[in-house]
């Protein structure tokens, strides 16, 4: 990016970030930039909507490029473009409530994504089976033991619920999920929040400038 643009956009980005941040910290009654903050938030929503369109245009450009250059996998790109344009035209012309659009969702997108969830389940089971072979560590053993315990405590038993063993397993599962897992997750979330804050501050301090360099 040229020097002039760099000098322009960095202050704009930093000012917008600090305005929104201070708007959250200060009460709107004493914040002279309260209205400006709300305006920026609305712009952000607009920009998000625009970004979806830009992303779709990028999707279109990438696949069109693959087709025009006959790169490997171009038939898939052709299919993507075909369904992309079909759905787009139907949605624009008839709206999202149009039965054909609903059918496309109901009988194409939903089954595909549901099958991917099923694939995820199989993948996780497979990863668990392989984990002890790939990574022979104590942490792997603990990971698998906890996973087994939680599965046993969550799922139904063939012998029925209510047995002493099943009750013990359920108690153990709840201890793990509601104490250790929840506590650990909370600690991880705090750590992630700290990382997110410092990352955001680097952007606000113009140290990280993904928008310009």
């Amino acid at each position: 990016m040229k020097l002039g643009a760099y000098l322009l956009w960095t202050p704009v980005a930093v000012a917008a970030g600090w305005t929104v941040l201070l708007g959250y910290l200060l009460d709107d009654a004493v914040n002279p930039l309260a209205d400006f903050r709300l305006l920026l938030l609305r712009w952000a929503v607009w920009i998000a909507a625009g970004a979806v369109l830009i992303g779709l245009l990028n999707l279109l450009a990438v696949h069109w490029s693959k087709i025009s250059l006959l790169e490997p996998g171009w038939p898939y790109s052709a299919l993507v473009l075909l369904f992309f344009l079909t759905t787009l035209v139907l949605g624009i012309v008839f709206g999202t409530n149009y039965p054909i659009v609903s059918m496309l969702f109901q009988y194409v997108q939903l089954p595909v994504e549901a099958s991917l969830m099923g694939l995820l389940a199989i993948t996780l089971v497979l990863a668990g089976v392989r984990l002890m072979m790939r990574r022979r560590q104590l942490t792997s053993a603990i990971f698998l033991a906890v996973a087994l315990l939680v599965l046993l405590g969550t799922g139904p038993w063939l012998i029925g619920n209510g047995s002493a063993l099943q009750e013990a397993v359920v108690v153990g599962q709840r201890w793990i999920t509601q104490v250790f897992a929840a506590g650990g997750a909370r600690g991880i979330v705090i750590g992630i929040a700290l990382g997110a804050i410092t990352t955001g501050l680097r952007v606000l301090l113009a140290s990280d400038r993904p928008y310009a360099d």
Partner: protein
Amino acid sequence: MDEIRCPMCSTLNPSEADVCRQCGARLKPVLGIPTGGKTGPLEAGDLPPVPDWLNRIRSDLPGEEGEAPASEGPDWLGRMREAATPGDEGPPAGEVPEWLKEDAPAPDEPAPSAPAPRTAPPAPAGKPAAASSTAEPPSPSLTPIEPGTSKPNETSMAGETPEWLSRIRDREAKARQRPGQEPEEDWLARFRDEAIPSAAQAKPDKKEARPEPPGVSPKPPPKEAGPAELRPMARPPAPVPSRAPEPIPAALQPPIPETEAPSQDLPKVPALILDSGGTATPGAEDIDLESIQLPEWMSDLKGGGPEEAAGERSRRDLAPATIPAWLEAMRPIDTFRSVVEIQPEEEQSVEAAGPLAGLRGVLLAEPVVAMPRAPGMDMGRVDVTDRHYAQAELLQKMLEEEAHEAPVAPGQRRRLPLLRWVVGAAVLLAVAIPAVLGATWFPVPSPEQWPPELVGFRSVMGRIPTDRASLLVFDYEPGYAGEMEAVLGPVVDDLMTRGIPLATLATRPAGRILAERILARYSSLHGFAAGEGFLHLGYLPGGATAAQAFLAAPRQAWESVGGAPSEGDVWVSPSLASIQTASDFGAVFLFSAGAESARTWVEQAGPLLDSTPLLAVVSAGVEPILRPYYDSQAPPLDAIASGLPMALAYEGANGRQADALSRWNPYGSGMLAAEALLAGGTLYGLAGWLTRRRPA
């Protein structure tokens, strides 16, 4: 011819003009050249004496034979050319280059540096030397000179011939007059005499001795052999491996020209080193041979044997300076050019041909790079070691491999993901079989075994007002529809049972359709009409930012993104007419499968909702993340529901069994299969770990 062509611009000028009318170049030499009154271009006979090297070059140029005049002036070297092959001339002893005088190999050194390509190899043993040089047909690799053609001006120029050269010529003449007689005192002269005929015969072709293949050095004459042993040197090359008992790999040998050297047509510049058939080397009696450092083997031959050479060595106080063989091999052979003295201007030749014809003292027409020269490295002296042989063999092997067409290697065999297939098949079968068979293998939990969160959830549901809409936030992707609909279905069913008006908001692009899907399913059961009992606010882009904006001011945020055109003006609906802030909703339900988005909604909505309850129906994976918000004091989250057991319990509480019950057995079967597979994999891995650690 009355006109003279300008040598510079080729413009025709009058014959009397001194300078070109076009370019001003001088048309006649400044020096008074006796032209005999001729006009026009200078003729050969009119030219002043030309330095021999220039004459030689001119005479050797293709197409110019016969044009170059035989020098009649005091060109002692030019005449010398006539009596010698082009490659064996050299300046007089006084003009021996300094480097050669100083750096020539010491007499006691072996003479491996004798230039192999220029030295004819020895003849096969047993063949008479004299006969071999005269009776044999001229070798294609030699440059024979016809003796009769080599002395047209020899005597006429005798007065200007240096004394030492005269003696040489006299001796040569005597030798020619009595062929077969060999001067007993000078084997070199004898050798020269033998070389002359064959070289003279080959002169028209100017063929040089075929270079020997690299790695094969000429075998120096044995020390015990007398001078006569050198005669076979004029014979065709018979390469003798110098030190390599085994053949040099073919890969290391340069291609040998089949007929002659590529530079055969170029003017040949003689070297000081004795060439094949060379005659320029002064005789021993004429020149102080001590001033020329000959190779040891030659010195031995000259001196009669190693004994004399040893005695000669013993007389030296200091050993002559020597240079390493590798450096000697790198010495440019045309270095002798530097010792060619520049003659006075009046003695310089006049250019006889070309655009510079008539000018004196012109530079060589041939660039120096075109002059023949010895190879920079004497290939005959390569020291081939065992390591070289090994490397050569390796190189040859590589080249041979390159020459062969490698068979197409079969592609890396793609290992079948058997384990993946086994695991996938086991899980799929475990889920499918009970679903297809309608099996009831797993007992349904009794109300006593229902999750404790159910009571709290239903308790909050009982407090939701029915005069205003409750907000349902659909924050999950279609992939989670199977899990989420099983849990939120009973919740929606309960909401409609209680007659609570609903408004849906999608935070994902597909959320609107997901909401329609679930509401349409239960609205028909409860007589809820779209637009009255429930309505859709549509998709709100912007993620958490949009959530914050919507919770603060729902209408403004909704309108700021243009609303949902297909939904119309939803805010005029009675259930939404009173809604100004998020806390105006009867309740807010969060249907989420994303931990971060669910946490964001809870954290953002909690402070803004006041007494309005916030209930979460989340994926089982998100539940541990949101539970602290539910378990804490003054919780921002009033109720939470997740997982199939909760859904089954809720269906039981509603009195309407739906999705949860139908999925209970496949769910249990699939879980059992996963547990078995995990346990088996873990045990297998542990067993492998232990068995591998034991030998260590």
